[in-house]
């Protein structure tokens, strides 16, 4: 923020995004070449391609960016990051935008409104048991957030159970208290932005 080594350039929002990303994503190096959007498997369904989104970040269009469905349709496949000639950590920027959108409550209005709920339900189970519990995750996520779709997913759940591909009960790690203490400390640190 204050005594930064580089001269301050770009919008306030640009610095917010970079500052909220743990490892510098080199976002200032973006050339606007569009390789990212051209490589993206779900680019067609995005409201803005990554390239457009980065131009909007530089222009300080905070709310439009955080309301965009783009980060939520990012499938974290790293195709863009592999091909980016400037080595911008695009996938990491998308994660940062997701976190900021959740913080502002914008995420619930995008066309991928259920994505944060899925992530949070997943995390609840990991925090409680130390490992993912798929049957619990799917059941809780659908009943709580997508009750009308439960009929659609039920045959798949039944098929998974029949093939013994779902556990009926969660598996808990032995040192769950240790993990919980680590996650609690990490959560405290989450609030402190990168200098």
């Amino acid at each position, binding site marked *: 923020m204050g005594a930064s080594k580089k001269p301050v350039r770009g919008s306030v929002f640009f610095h917010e995004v970079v500052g909220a990303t743990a*490892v510098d994503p080199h976002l200032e190096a973006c050339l606007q070449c569009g390789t990212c959007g051209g490589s993206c498997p779900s680019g067609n369904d995005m409201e803005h391609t990554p390239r457009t989104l980065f131009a909007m970040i530089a222009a300080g269009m905070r709310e439009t960016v955080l309301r965009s469905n783009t980060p939520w349709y990012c499938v974290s496949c790293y195709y863009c990051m592999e091909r980016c000639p400037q080595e911008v950590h695009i996938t990491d920027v998308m994660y940062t935008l997701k*976190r900021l959108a959740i913080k502002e409550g914008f995420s619930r209005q995008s066309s991928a409104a259920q994505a944060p709920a899925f992530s949070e339900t997943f995390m609840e189970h990991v925090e409680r048991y*130390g*490992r993912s519990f798929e049957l619990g995750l799917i059941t809780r996520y659908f009943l709580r957030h997508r009750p009308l779709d439960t009929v659609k997913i039920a045959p798949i759940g039944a*098929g998974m159970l029949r093939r013994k591909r779902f556990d009926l009960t969660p598996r808990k790690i032995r*040192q769950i208290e240790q993990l919980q203490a680590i*996650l609690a400390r990490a959560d405290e640190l989450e609030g402190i932005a990168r200098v």
Partner: protein
Amino acid sequence: MQYGYYPGCSLERNAGAYHESTMAVAGVLGLQFTEVDDWNCCGATEFFSVNQMQAYALTGRNLALAADQFAPQPALPVIPVEVAEPPQLVAPCSACYLNLSKVDRYLASSPELAAKVNTALDAGGLHYDPGSLRVRHLLDVMVNDAGYDAIAARVQRALTGLRVAPYYGCLVVRPGFQGQFDDPEYPTTLDKLMRVLGAKVVDFPLKAHCCGGHMTQISEDVALELLRRLLKNAADYQADVIVTLCPMCQLNLDVFQRAVNRRFGTNFNLPVLFFTQLMGLAFGLAPERLGIGKEFVASRPALAKIGASGEAEQERAVGKRAKRRNDQSLPMPYMPEEEER
């Protein structure tokens, strides 16, 4: 050879077949996989979307536990520990592999982040020095450490006539946080491995495209289209089976294949198996030991082809074409009727 082994949550149950077949095949090849004691979930793609420091700390705990458990014991106290190669940690799941290698590299590149993660780990009495482990994907270990020759030497029931579409998905070859063992856009190690087993590897231009990961749970519109492309591509090249190296890819392509057919009016019937299952079959192991039969799209009809081992694939009524390329030329798509025999 000795390795630390991080199975990940999927291999405990939904991809139990991957774990079983990995262990069976490793046994045949003399690879020793020792599970990381009391490991936790890697966080998949979910933690990074919500809580960044928790995401790093979660994987940090796994790295710290593994580095501790597999720390090299110097034979002579004179030899500095840095001389020794770091112990190796193998992950069969692409997402686990990505998270473990990414967090290790990011901590190495940012001492500030490493300090924070260690502050979190300290709450559980743990500590991790970046670079203490070398994270490898299972495919890398199979083809580069065990090696094609040793694998070929174990083949008892060649997969002759089985048309295999090798599917790499995204995270195994990209972005290579701890070095790339294969080309990020047109990988070929799995192709070679399948050929060594005797299978007919079909061209599969979408072999390194994404299966959509968790999108099946979030937006069917996005997810099913990604899956349709992959299935169509494999079907166009007349594959009998798609072979994969990631539990998420297997789950999406297998379990949601019916949903794809329903939505697009298609009729795909492509079994999706793990590469270790096909290795096991080629090694002559019983299908039951390899978790075969747990897939939604049954693989038995396709595998009947190799039950009749030695029977050559039926020649198609296609005129012989001149060879258009050699091994040095750029990889280009080719259709089944253009395949070399």
